[in-house]
């Protein structure tokens, strides 16, 4: 039989249980650890999601060397091209990974390289176009390591 004191107890419990979810919404809004760095990069200009595709394996063999294939939709003409692309890491000790400067002579805004990832994370690429706009894309990578740690 659920008595009044018991009902009160249960509702208090339910209230306490809801707290993480309420805090969660605020936490998620402030969750982007790269926000200050992106702000500095773009000088406060807005960054739009899109036009940048970052192709990385969903599950990386080893965090020391993870393949990365970057493409930005752009005609790469003198009037309309990609000026630069910056790679940012959410969890590496140095979030700024690399910056590539292209330009109309590049012909294609496409790049392949291999990066280091300090654990599972999202990698972001921010492209700066000739019209001054910023576009971004990202990839989520799970990083595993080999089981036996090498001594040398």
């Amino acid at each position: 039989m659920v008595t009044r004191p018991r009902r009160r107890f249960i509702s208090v419990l339910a209230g306490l249980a809801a707290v993480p979810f309420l805090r969660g919404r605020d936490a998620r809004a402030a969750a982007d650890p790269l926000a200050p760095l992106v702000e500095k990069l773009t000088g406060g200009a807005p960054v739009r999601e899109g036009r940048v595709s970052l192709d990385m394996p969903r599950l990386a063999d080893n965090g020391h060397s993870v393949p990365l294939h970057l493409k930005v939709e752009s005609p790469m003409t003198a009037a309309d091209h990609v000026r630069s692309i910056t790679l940012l890491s959410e969890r590496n000790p140095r979030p700024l990974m690399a910056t590539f400067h292209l330009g109309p002579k590049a012909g294609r805004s496409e790049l392949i390289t291999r990066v280091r990832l300090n654990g599972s994370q999202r990698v972001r690429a921010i492209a700066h176009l000739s019209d001054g706009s910023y576009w971004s894309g990202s990839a989520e990578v799970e990083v595993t390591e080999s089981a036996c740690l090498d001594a040398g």
Partner: protein
Amino acid sequence: MTTPAGFARHPSYVKEGNSQARFELSNRSYAHLRLSAVALLFAVACAAHAAEAQKPSPLKSGLDFAGADVRALQADDFANPGMLWVARGEKLWREPAGKAAKSCAGCHGEAPAGMKGVAARYPRVDPGAARLVNLEGRINLCRERHQGAAPLQYESDELLGLTALVAHQSRGAPVAAALDPQNRASFERGRDFYHLRQGQMNLSCAHCHDRNSGGKLAAETVSQGHGNAYPIYRLEWQAAGSLHRRFRSCLFGIRAESLAPGSPEFVDLELYLAWRASGLPIETPGVRR
């Protein structure tokens, strides 16, 4: 109570009473039984030993246990980081070295023609040194004898470069280290090392690479443990490395005492591994995670 002669040490066979028990055996037939028992035990022991020293079937390269990215990286001759060491080897091949100021090319010509198929036959007994040598050892013997140069250090970029260059010339050729009376003792030492339980974890190579290949060791898939792709570029090492470096990693993994790269025990083990991998194509420079 009388005991039949010769049975004093086996009282269980002695029955009280005058008559010989049905299960009593004569002296001679017991001796025969003992001899057959020993023979049977020996045969079983031999069979077990021979059964242990078996080649995995079907033979699978480490590449078959690797993920898509590693396979793609090995297949791409430009992106394969191991090729940087082959390129270094190509430079060193042409450089004069030692007191004789001779280059490898001076005697052997350009690497592709001169070294084709050579790596597939190693390790082998070097007549001059009268011991089993692997490819690294043979390169160093050449340096000492013909170039008057100091041997190169294991895991140095130079030795890795030259070894990778020579082994690369055998890429695609099947591993074919032949067993003969000269290297038989080495082979058996290598085989015994492979089956020896070692370290805090008390494991032998066979436990992982024979009995559990294809299984998981944390995030790693256990391979059959072949050396056909060495020297390899290992993502974890962020560099190229020799088969002896890999042996040392394994020994570290099972918390066993390690041996120095170039140790004769490792060279003997290489021979056993080469026998075990007979027929697998050489892949140097391999890429592994």
